[in-house]
């Protein structure tokens, strides 16, 4: 069953996500959490790309190798690739935001321990 | 509606008879009580003398308007109660003013005097009067309950609220009396009767030394005389109701005299035999002993 490259890539992606999540759930350091999320993001992106993969096909660029007429049978699904581009950029934006947060939080309390920011609760 | 003006002199006649009978009867009962204590007790005419003396007191004081109204309410209650109930069964003359209302009127009119007296005594500003009233009212709520139940049982039994019709239904021999047709109701009512007669064991209301005779502690002279007048009439009026409801009523004055005497005597008997209850004790007593009888009597019917 697990034979195609797509499966392996996807599995790798999922594992990355889980690793990222685990990191985010167990590290109390803000920066480590952010890194963990980056890992998870990467995992997501891999899964995204993996879904678009089709065995034995090529990139969706029409050039001499892939004439317009054959495109349907020669290229892989271009949509996930487009989506992953967007996803990456958005992930970048989010990461930047989180970093900014981390910076400000550190300025406030001189600590990066998430367990120290619990004044708001209940 | 045409009003028969002759009812007024007839009613006054009833009033006169009952008043005198009441004065003598209470003295007689007092004498019986004294005999139970191996005394001679007061003379049989003592009540008349006391009444004259109190009317003859030269000075009096007043605490205010309600102070006046207290005894007036009280006596109005007594007289009204007497007149709203037919005294002698089958006699147009002594059916009094019972056309105005039925048994319910009589039962509720009992409270007229109580309320008025309470108000008048309250106006005197005397704390003992108020204490006495609270005791009296507290006790009466429990004491009235078995009576109410018994009355209701009787009304159910005869399917009427008219006193005349209830008496009519009991005619034709002693075994037709409610006492025998519905003994539970009568038992309950007679226990209630004890509570309403201000005699031991239910006379903590008056507690002569603790709260010098309670509600009437400030009353004297003519006020007191008026209340004494009531004391002659009111118990008889109450007993008339009991008589009519439970003991076949009376068809003649002698029968009336005997029955009223016997019923009155019952409370006197109990009174000389038992010491005093505290208020909460008497409330509990009524609720525990008298009320279940009343309940049974209602279920029985």
């Amino acid at each position, binding site marked *: 069953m697990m034979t195609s490259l797509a499966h392996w890539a996807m599995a790798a992606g999922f594992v990355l996500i889980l690793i990222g999540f685990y990191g985010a759930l167990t590290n109390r350091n803000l920066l480590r959490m952010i890194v963990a999320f980056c890992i998870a993001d990467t995992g997501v992106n891999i899964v995204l790309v993996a879904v678009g993969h089709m065995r034995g096909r090529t990139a969706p660029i029409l050039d001499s190798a892939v004439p317009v007429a054959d495109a349907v049978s020669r290229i892989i699904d271009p949509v996930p690739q487009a989506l992953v581009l967007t996803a990456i950029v958005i992930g970048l934006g989010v990461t930047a935001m989180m970093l900014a947060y981390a910076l400000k939080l550190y300025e406030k309390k001189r600590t990066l321990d998430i367990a120290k920011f619990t004044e708001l609760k209940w | 509606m045409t009003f028969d003006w002759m009812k007024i002199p007839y009613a006054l006649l009833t009033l006169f008879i009952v008043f005198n009978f009441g004065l003598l009867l209470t003295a007689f009962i007092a004498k019986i009580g*004294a005999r139970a204590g191996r005394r*001679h007790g007061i*003379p049989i005419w*003592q009540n008349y003398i006391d009444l004259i003396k109190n009317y003859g007191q*030269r000075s*009096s*004081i007043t605490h205010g308007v309600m102070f006046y109204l207290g005894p007036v309410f009280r006596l109005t209650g007594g007289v009204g109660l007497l007149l709203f109930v037919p005294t002698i069964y089958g006699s147009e003359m002594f059916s009094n003013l019972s056309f105005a209302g039925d048994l319910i009127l009589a039962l509720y009119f009992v409270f007229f005097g109580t309320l008025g007296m309470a108000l008048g005594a309250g106006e005197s500003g005397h704390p003992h009067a108020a204490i006495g009233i609270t005791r009296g009212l507290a006790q009466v709520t429990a004491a009235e309950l078995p009576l109410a139940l018994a009355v209701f049982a009787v009304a159910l039994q005869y399917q009427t609220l008219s006193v005349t019709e209830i008496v009519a239904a009991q005619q034709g021999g002693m075994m037709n009396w409610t006492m025998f047709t519905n003994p539970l109701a009568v038992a309950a009512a007679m226990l209630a009767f004890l509570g309403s007669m201000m005699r031991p064991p239910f006379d903590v209301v008056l507690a002569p030394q603790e709260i010098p*005779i309670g509600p009437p502690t400030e009353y004297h002279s003519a006020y007191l005389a008026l209340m004494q007048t009531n004391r002659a009439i009111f118990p008889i009026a109450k007993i008339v109701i009991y008589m009519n409801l439970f003991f076949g009523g009376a068809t003649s004055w002698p029968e009336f005299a005997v029955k009223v005497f016997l019923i009155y005597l019952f409370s006197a008997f109990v009174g000389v035999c038992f010491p005093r209850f505290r208020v909460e004790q008497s409330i509990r007593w009524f609720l525990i002993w008298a009320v279940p009888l009343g309940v049974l009597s209602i279920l029985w019917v």
Partner: protein
Amino acid sequence: MKEELLKRVVKGPDGVEFEVEPLRDYYCEAPPAVHPPVYAKIVEDLFNWARSQSIWILGFGTGCGAIEMRPLMTPRFDAYRYGIQWRPTPRQANLLVISGYLSVKTLKRAIRAYEQMQNPKYVVGLGSCTINGGMYWDSYNTIKRLDDYLPVDLYITGCMPRPEALLAGFEDLKKLIRAGKAEGANQYAENFDWYKTNQKRVIHDWDMPDYNW
């Protein structure tokens, strides 16, 4: 004067302050009035007869004589037969029996009780002490002569008089009443100032209105 009888300034619920003078505001200041027998002679006679046959004694014992009063209610003496009864409240009583020596402190109470009884009212002094102080003639805190303070209608002598003597005394009182000679209440009203002077002479902590209605 006791503190509670002093003038005081109180604030009403509307915030306005005003003065309360207890003796004026809480007690009737009127002096006692003389109540002459106003009815026709025959009516007055009837009333006097009734008064004599219906003597209500205030249940108030002052000295050792109080003990002698109680047997009157018992089967042995049974004063009720003679129309004599006890009342717990002075409003309803006609007769004040000063039963024995009267201390100054008790005098104040006796005066109050007496003044709260309604006219006509009678005072009977019981025992020697009410007459001249008896064995306490030189005591610092008993009064010696009751008649100086209250209008006594009758003394029953003895130390102590037996219940039988009391019964006899009451019979005498009845005679006085029937004869219309027991007018102590009016006498008290007529000589009110004299009685008050006498009373105030011995009662130094006078803390009541002159007449206790």
